[in-house]
């Protein structure tokens, strides 16, 4: 194998996920560094800030907790720029966080001087629904970082494309489901951007229905604690093979399906008792919010996932995952469609659902649920898999992309691929 010695040392990948920022050079091996994808803007008027005036405007990385001030300020000062996958063009604070994270990532891996380093070849990944201005802003950020000589060339690729590369499949459909939204993206050596379908539904919506379930079960005081609600969702939430059957079974044997969650380090124990059947609503809502049972929640004030337009993309609110996959695949050439159904890859924390052994007859994992949804719509010859390394598959894909794509493949604004070179 002929390898490019420079790129086998100085390829750098950055995955701007909704919650975490994963970054590092190829020399990290299989696992990159991970910090929260967030930045904190300290109150410059505070006494603490005046006493220790060394803090920068925006703090990112592992030091963020050291600077956090009062809880009241957190929502306005602690910024998660990629929470919804898309940053508004005018959202200056969010872009400052992205810039600070990029610089933090590069400065964490500053090579030794005088070893032939001419700057990293950086591959950054963004949500597949990112509008063009996000590419422009991000590339500008790296242009500024190049002032220190740390960047030689940069490119940006969509996260589902990186997932497919990291998983080693060249023709497939990738479904990436994060906190705020989900993206269905067909790939056939290139991302087929015109066939993408975006959903305005993600892990955050599963949290929302979990919160409603807690309120109904008498835990209204805990239902607003976001971190706790998320833990409860992960602990008791189940994906039903068929919701009606699962509810029937759970109501027949409430003891067998009992949902309980003990909050570590406290006296709090959440027990859904006779309402334990509601644990199936959490998983079902992620995959298909169209069951009539959810209407009662919408009627009582839980916001219905709406169709929204962000940038050039319409995010569908109520489309179930089966319909979303079919809509996406059917926008591709007919002869490609069977090949796409044969490799469906699921990526992202919103697909991490466990199946307790005694409940295997009624509860399923995410790949099985997708298969069942497609089967109900007449698509049978499908293969659905979770990515090999759900947490790092995007970063892996970026590293492979940066290593393999030739230097002379220049950035093309129409294709949104290639290297934007800054020097050399």
């Amino acid at each position: 194998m002929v390898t490019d010695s420079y790129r086998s040392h100085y390829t750098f990948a950055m995955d701007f996920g909704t919650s975490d920022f994963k970054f590092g050079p190829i020399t990290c091996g299989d696992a990159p560094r991970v910090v929260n994808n967030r930045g904190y803007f300290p109150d410059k008027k505070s006494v603490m800030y005046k006493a220790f005036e060394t803090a920068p405007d925006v703090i990112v990385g592992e030091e963020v907790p050291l600077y956090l001030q009062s809880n009241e300020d957190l929502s306005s000062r602690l910024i998660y720029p990629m929470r919804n996958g898309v940053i508004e063009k005018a959202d200056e604070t969010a872009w400052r966080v992205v810039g600070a994270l990029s610089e933090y990532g590069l400065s964490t891996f500053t090579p030794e001087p005088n070893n032939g380093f001419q700057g990293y070849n950086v591959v950054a990944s963004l949500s597949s629904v990112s509008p063009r201005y996000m590419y422009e802003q991000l590339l500008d950020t790296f242009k500024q970082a190049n002032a220190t000589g740390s960047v030689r060339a940069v490119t940006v690729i969509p996260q589902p494309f990186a997932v497919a590369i990291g998983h080693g499949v060249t023709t497939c459909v990738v479904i990436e489901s994060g906190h705020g939204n989900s993206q269905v993206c067909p790939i056939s050596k290139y991302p087929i951007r015109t066939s993408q379908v975006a959903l305005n539904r993600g892990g955050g919506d599963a949290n929302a229905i979990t919160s409603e379930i807690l309120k109904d079960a008498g835990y209204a005081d805990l239902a607003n604690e976001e971190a706790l609600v998320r833990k409860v969702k992960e602990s008791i939430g189940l994906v039903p093979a068929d919701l009606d059957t699962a509810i029937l079974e759970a109501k027949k044997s409430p003891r067998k399906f009992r949902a309980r969650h003990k909050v570590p380090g406290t006296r709090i124990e959440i027990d859904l008792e006779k309402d334990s059947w509601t644990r199936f609503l959490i998983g079902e809502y992620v995959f298909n919010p169209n069951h009539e049972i959810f209407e009662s929640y919408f009627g009582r004030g839980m916001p219905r996932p709406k169709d929204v337009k962000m940038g050039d993309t319409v995010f569908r609110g109520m489309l179930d995952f089966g319909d979303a996959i079919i809509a996406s695949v059917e926008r591709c050439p007919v002869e490609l469609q069977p090949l796409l159904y044969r490799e469906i890859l699921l990526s992202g924390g919103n697909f991490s659902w466990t199946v307790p052994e005694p409940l295997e007859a009624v509860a399923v994992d995410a790949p099985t649920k997708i298969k069942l949804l497609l089967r109900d719509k007449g698509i049978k010859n499908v293969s659905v898999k979770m990515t090999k390394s759900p947490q790092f598959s995007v970063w892996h894909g970026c590293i492979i992309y940066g290593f393999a794509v030739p230097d002379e493949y220049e950035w093309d604004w129409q294709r949104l691929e290639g290297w934007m070179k800054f020097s050399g």
Partner: protein
Amino acid sequence: MANLPIEERLLHYFLAMGGQSAEPIPNSPPGLSLLIGPDKTFVAILSNDTFIQRNKILGSILDLSALRSSVHQLYLAAPKLLGTAIDADVFRSHGIGLLLFDDRRIEEIVPPQPTQPPQTTQIVQNTDPAFATELASLKSMYLEMERTISNLREELKTFQQSVPTAPSSPERITAPPMVQTQRQFTGPGAELPSFFTNNPWLEVLSKRGREESGLLAG
């Protein structure tokens, strides 16, 4: 013992050290030829009258140096009386041992530095009979091979004369071989992460910009 001539005293000295008397070395100055273990040793002897022959010491050193090629160890034995006139460093630099003697004692002042005399003549003289047999066998095989090649040449010549001219020889390929300019990816290098193993994207992505753009890409 003190009444014995110095030659005999020196012989006894070396016999006591495990040496034995040996055949005289051709063209050597007056002295003793000995074998100490496997090492051939020669001892040149200076007499008391050397004191009045000023160049005798230097001459003896030169004579001994000339024996370097055939003797392992060289000594010069001189009366103790001459000790003050002798520079031991000259002996050390030439690797020659120095023995000083008087009527009562013989003392090694400078130990000799053993040398490895050339073995050529010895090898020829001490040729292993098995080696000689092997050599003869190889020679015979070589002659046989030469004969075989010669016969083959003759047969080929005869064959070429008997075969008529070829009806049509295949056309030679004149185009230069294709030069592989693209990088080939067959597996990860030693320093690459494990997720590179058998990843088909390495091949696909390495062709970016060198193939027609994908029509499906938006």
